């Protein structure tokens, strides 16, 4: 499965960011979320959600082999990660995020919590099969 982003539906509410940090850090702090909302205002007036598409480039580059594929997601192993940020530099779409208080870079692990709270269809789950036929 993967998360499908329909940016036209995003209203910029940031519920996805809150639930993301609650799920991963037991904290409320949108700046630590694995999803970013890029508002483009005043023109054209659109919110662009940005998050990992699970391409695996980070895992290939990681010198510690700390990014492991678990089911459909590449997940940072917090035990192995040395916070060297090589993955941040190689991420082709700039969605390996950082925060001064986070022990490792921040990336989406497909927990799907964000899709459960999103009420506009901006973030939805699609199976791999339907993704492939797209």
């Amino acid at each position: 499965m993967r998360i499908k982003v329909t940016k036209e539906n995003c209203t910029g509410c940031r519920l996805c960011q809150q639930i993301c940090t609650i799920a991963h850090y037991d904290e409320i702090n949108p700046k630590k979320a694995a999803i970013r909302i890029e508002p483009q205002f005043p023109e054209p007036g659109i919110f662009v959600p940005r998050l990992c598409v699970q391409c695996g480039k980070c895992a290939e580059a990681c010198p510690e082999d700390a990014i492991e594929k678990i089911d459909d997601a590449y997940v940072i192993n917090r035990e192995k990660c040395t916070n060297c940020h090589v993955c941040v530099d190689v991420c082709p779409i700039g969605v390996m995020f950082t925060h001064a208080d986070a022990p490792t870079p921040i990336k989406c692990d497909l927990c799907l919590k964000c899709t459960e709270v999103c009420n506009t269809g901006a973030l939805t789950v699609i199976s791999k099969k339907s993704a492939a036929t797209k």
Partner: protein
Amino acid sequence: MDGFGGTILRINLESGEIKRTPTPEDLARGWMGARGFVAKTLYDEVPRDADPLGPENLLIMAPGVMTGAFAPCGSKIGFGCISPATNGHADSNMGGMLGAEVKYAGYDMVVFERVSPEPVYLYIDDDTVELRPAGDYWGMGSLDLEKKMKEDLGEDFQIATIGPAGENGVVFSCITHDFGRQAGRCGVGAVMGSKRLKAIAVRGTKSLPVHDLPAMTKATYDIIQRTKSHPLMEPWQKYGTALFVGWANEHGCFPTKNFQTTYHEHWESISGEKLAEEVLVTHKACFGCWMNCGKYSVAKIPGKPDTYVEGPEYETIALCGGSCGMKDIHHVAYANWLCDNLGLDTMSSGNTIGFAMECFEKGIITKDDLEGHELKWGDIDDFENVVRMIADRRGIGETLSYGTKGAAERLGQNTIAFASQAKGMEFSGYDTRWYWAQLLSYCTSDIGAHHNRSWAITADVQIGQDTPKGKAPVVIYLQHIRPLFDTWCCCRLFWGELDVTPEEHVDTIRQLTGWDVTLEECMQVSEKIWNITRAHYLERNGGPGRQFDVAPARHLDEKIPSGPAEGHAVGRENFEYMLDDYYYNRGWDKQGHPTREVLEILGIPYVADNLEKIGLLGKPFEDGVPKVRGEKLKPKAM
């Protein structure tokens, strides 16, 4: 302290000194944030003879206990000061993203003191707090400046700005954020301008301390899932507050041509549906809101630039649209953008310009006053000319810059009779001649005629419209429940429209703070706020209090000439009956003065002492004040 940022900032704009103090828990629990913090701080600190636009006034910015929490839309932040429009306590709040950002930076209140010698803006990046020069920004439009500051500082910063109107001291200037969210009312933008504070930029990257995060997460998660399928969710998501345009016309409360009548023949051309069809760019939510009532729009008018702004909301459509006789949603959206970029409250602007249009119709204002322009109903070019004159305070714009009451005092000729205002604050977008509880709400409000102090329109229908009976206790209850949302700083619409109960909100606060707080305790905080702001108004303006709680002649005497509410007016006897009933049920005397008994119940005996010193403490009730003050009624959703 769980649930709070932990720090109060005091910024002396004259000396540049910045002080940090820990947020006291007795302030936090006793006043809960935003409107409560503002009410207490202004009452305790501002000299009673301070000029609202002078150095002794304070400008306060404060989020509330729920701001930034995983709660039903904890987005709000309050701004407060003494209002240049009413000369009383003022607070006005906004949604958007600013409140949460301030909280994540660790602040519960920022108090601006004195006046800066040069234009400045406040820069907050977590613990870094600086006053920075804003000379290059001075004179810029609110929206233009937000764009510029996002470019200068980065998208991560949340920005609040004032426009030229605020710099120039127009008494209904607002503070703008997020390309169209405002602390709109009371002239908070004029006070910010008087302090030469052009903008506030904030980035917060800290985590919010929460007492019981798993419990709060579960409760809010369940509320999200439950309300997703609420029957009103979809219409609210589609149309936002503009949904109400149709209802208001069908029920005869839509201000039309300066409240001359209450049904707009062309309402369908400025309705929520028309907004969605013609000008909508995107749906836009405040922080943590899954209902996204915000509508971001573009106005396309031949010969004018395309303009983007969040809105128009119901109030803007009612007042810039209906009250100014507009018939085109693009024109309303353009008027919205003009007001926002100039830094003017769309509500008071629409009301005041509608008033000026009636003056033009009657020959009281002429082309000579308007630099050769006219001021015709529904004419967007005329609207643009006069709104720019107001922002610049040029010619007749100077007269109108005081709002309808101030303008009527300057124009004379009994124009005050058709100035729809209370205490110097313009009516919101609801005519009251068939909605008497709403008139009582407007006239007894601490900040003047603002609907959000107690929105009683559907409550009027529930109680029965053509009677003064039973209105006052319900208005009091609504005046008590509404401050909860303004202090907690979560959006009232989840209660009003989606049936999230106040008890559920209180549960969130318990989970957030660890306090054993109850709804009853919160309601008492509300009543305390209502009483302290009343006392503050009396201490600044003298007595008797009853002389200030007056309704405009149009709404008392003139029968509605057309539409579903044709033939209705409130009548003076009915209004006086409601006022007597209101004071009694508040535990105030017949002059509207709070009594010692009530102030002591609320835990603020020092306010009674202050009122006693100036002879404005209410006469005691022989049999004691009513035990239950206010009568519970949940207004029907639209």
